[in-house]
Every structure is written in C-alpha cells, then in structure tokens.
C-alpha cells in the first residue's frame, strides 16, 4: 500500500474524525464534501463515540492474503451511540459467543500488514464489552 493512501485516512482511522452537517446535523463518517441528506456543504469536525452494539457480524474463514494469519476472524457492523454505523474487525473475543446486540467498544489496533516490508496499517477494531 502506498504510504500517501494510508496517510490520508489517518484522521478517520486514528482519531475517528467525522463530519457533522452544520445545517441538518447529519453525521457522516468518513467526511464528505456535501451532505447526503440536505445538500449543505459545511461541516463541523466531530469525534465518533467509542461505544455501540453489533447489528450484524460474520466469522471469515476464507481470508484475503493480508488477513490469512488472522483467520478465522470476525467482522461486524456496529451502530454507535450516536447512530453512525461502521464496519470493522471484532477482536479479542471468542467468535462463537458473538451475537447481534453484543455491546462493543472501539480500540486502536494494527489492522493489516502489507507483506514483509510494506506499510503497517493501523485503525479501529471492535472489542466486545464482556472482554
């Protein structure tokens, strides 16, 4: 992965920065240039809450090459306490105990490695609250 591509995502991946529409209040993650609800073009920078609950999940057993050493691993979509939904890996857990509705918190983790000499990519993962 070319470093610039990774670098430009740091505000979202490292700091959970989102945009809040100054007109209608819609929160978009990642940031956008125009509000998908009202068409307004000005946003204020907000930080996403770091807790929510799973609305769906799956345990991946056939994984892409960057993730083979982690398989089987779970991915899920969580709805955060402010209503924003996002997808991430669910880590530090017994995947057989996951359920829709499981409460999670967001933690900062290494997400993938681009080969032996490539960029280490960090970002957010979900951790069930029971861990």
């Amino acid at each position, binding site marked *: 992965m070319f470093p610039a591509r990774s670098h430009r995502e740091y505000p979202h991946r490292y700091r959970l920065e989102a945009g809040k529409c100054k007109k209608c209040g819609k929160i978009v993650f990642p940031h956008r240039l125009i509000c998908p609800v009202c068409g307004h073009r000005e946003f204020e920078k907000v930080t996403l809450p770091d807790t929510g609950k799973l609305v*769906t999940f*799956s345990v*991946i*057993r056939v*994984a892409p090459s960057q993730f083979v050493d*982690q398989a089987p691993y779970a*991915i899920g979509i969580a709805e955060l306490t402010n209503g924003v*939904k996002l997808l991430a890996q669910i880590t530090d857990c017994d995947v057989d105990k996951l359920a*829709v509705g499981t409460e999670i918190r967001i933690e900062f983790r290494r997400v993938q490695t681009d080969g032996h000499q490539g960029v280490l990519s960090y*970002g957010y993962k979900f951790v069930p609250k029971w861990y």
Partner: protein
Amino acid sequence: MRDVAVIGVGMNKWGELWEKSLRDIFVEAALAAIDDAGVDHLDSMTVGCMTGGLFVGQEHLGSLLADYLGYKNLPATRVESACASGGLAFRTAFIEVASGMSDIVLAGGVEKMTDVSGDGATYALATAADQEYEVFHGATFPGLYALMATAHMQKYGTTREMLSAVAVKNHFNGSMNPFAQYPFKTTREEVEGSVMVASPLRIMDCSPITDGAAAVILTTIDIAKKLGKPIIKIIGSGHATDSIALHSRDDMTTLLSTTVAAEKALKMAGKSIKDINFAEVHDCFTIAEIVVTESLGIFAPGKGGEAAVKGETGLEGSFPINTSGGLKSKGHPVGATGVAQVIEVVKQLRGTAENGRQLKKRPKIGMTQNMGGSGGSTLVHILEVA
C-alpha cells in the same frame, strides 16, 4: 423512443477455460449471437467487463474485442458497474437503438477470472466493495453477504434450510443447462456439509469463479420483422445505485437499488410485478436470491426464504426464479452475467430453453435483475414476446 427487440443470443459453455483467452471467449459468444440473429453487420457494440485489468492485465477492451470480432473502426464502448456490468452493457445498447443513434447493436459481457490465483480473484472482486471502509478491515464478498444473511436471520427468522433450498433448486435447474459451469444436482445435506466460507455462508451458498462470455443483438422492431426473427421486445429498463458500503445503508435486509430499479422498469413497461411470469435474478449467494425476490416485490419482506422452501420459485412454482440455474450453477463470470440472464429470458420466451427446463406454461413476460457489489448498483429489464 423507438421500440427495441432482442433478435439474437449467444454464449459458450462456461467454466475454467484454461485453453481460451478473454478475447477468444468473447468472440465465440459474439459470433454465436450474430449467427443467431442473422444480421450481416453491426453498427455499434457495448461490452460489460468488471475488471479485465485485474484479471488479465487488459483494459481498452472495446477496441480490442471489436478488432478480434472482425470489426475494425466499429464504435465500441466498454462499461463497468462491477457484477452488473453486463446488465449495464445491455441497457446502454438498448438506449442507443431506442434513441435512433444506431440500428443494430451487439451487447456483450465477458470475464476471464482463472488467470489469477484464488487470492487474486478475491482481491479483484473486492474492488466492487468500499476499499477503504470495508475491504481494508478484512471484509470479503462472501463476508458482506454473510452480514446481510445474519441481519436477515435476526430480523425475519430466515433459516439455514431456506438458504439451502435456493442452492438445491438452482443446481436442479442448472443440471438442464448445457452452458452451465456446474450442471450437477445437489442436496440439502451436501450444501449444509460444505466448508464454511464466512458464517453463515458455506461454499455451496456461493456462486463460483468462472470464465465466460455472453452476447445479444438488439435492433428495431422494423428490422427484426424484416429478418423474420421471433421478436422479443424490451418493454422496461431500470437502473439505480446505492451506497456501495453496506454499513452506510439504513436497512441491510433489503436492497434499495433493486427496489428502485424494478419500480422504474415496471413503470416504463406499464406493468406490475404480478404481470411478470418469471425472473432471472442475481444469486451470487443464496441469501442474495432471497433478499432480491423480496426487494423486487415478488414476495413480502421476510417471506423470500419460505417461498424457496415451498417450491414457489421452482420450475413448477408460482414465480419461477433462475430457470437457467442462476449464478450458482451456471457460473458467474461477473461482466457476462447480466447478458446471460437476458439470454435465458429470451430462450424461455421463445420456448427454446434446453433439456426440459422450458417452463411448461409458455411465459409471455420475463424479468432480469443484475446487481453490482453488495447492491451498490442494480439493472432490471423486462422483456415480452411481441
């Protein structure tokens, strides 16, 4: 707008075609369509291909394929909408003939997927998802449809048995399709004993990696009459998009792009879904067929799985789905799939579907639904025997 008919169809036997290149596969199907139509020239050509670049390192496909088809200097347009590229090529050709810009247009689709490893294919297909906010985190395509399946099971009580019913039915239909990649029958036990890919989806819930092409010839009703061909008229065309990231949608148990595209196509045709006799839909995974039949309005939300178990979608059912075997059995060379769906509908409407899978009560109106990614785009077409 001029009325437009499909007068020729052609495809090859799909599979792992080690001896054939992308260009050969495409030209085979295109020549079969040209021969079936009996036309002596083309005015234009559209080709759907998701990613020749990632699968065989080849772009600029419009020109390459027109050249190898023997048509130097032909206007040739390659279109892309992930797994809906074929459906988009068909719509583009339809618009071109309807508008009066061209009289005889070939709409084709092609994908050569086995020149890369399984991992390479997984990477190429994943480009149809949100690279930075889905794929980056380890989501795969089976994984995204698995997220839909889990949500659907949670909301409606959809079961493992319902998913299996889709696979068993489509392989049964595909066993009668001489062009299918996997024309074998299967059983619920085999499906449920197959290896897990992304829970709850097993390998027998997934459509395969396929090399293949498909092509159809579109022209005006007047030219079709002069050629003396059975006239299958395109009466509706709908196209809609949605966010390609699944998590950006309000409801993950339905496919809004499919609902909107179907509404547009039905409105154009002046029909309701009850007027449609059968459909070819995008069963890239078993759960997809269930969600799509609900999103099209064929069955109520949450009732698609039950309908599959009860045989409502079988050859003898109230609304046959995927008489060709669908993506599951026929194969899924992504760019070709949308065009091959049209071919099956044309065959059923002509009454020429092979080996006993022809619907007994001869259908009058058929529908195709071809979808990109996890539903980020959908093309719906409605065809009628004139």
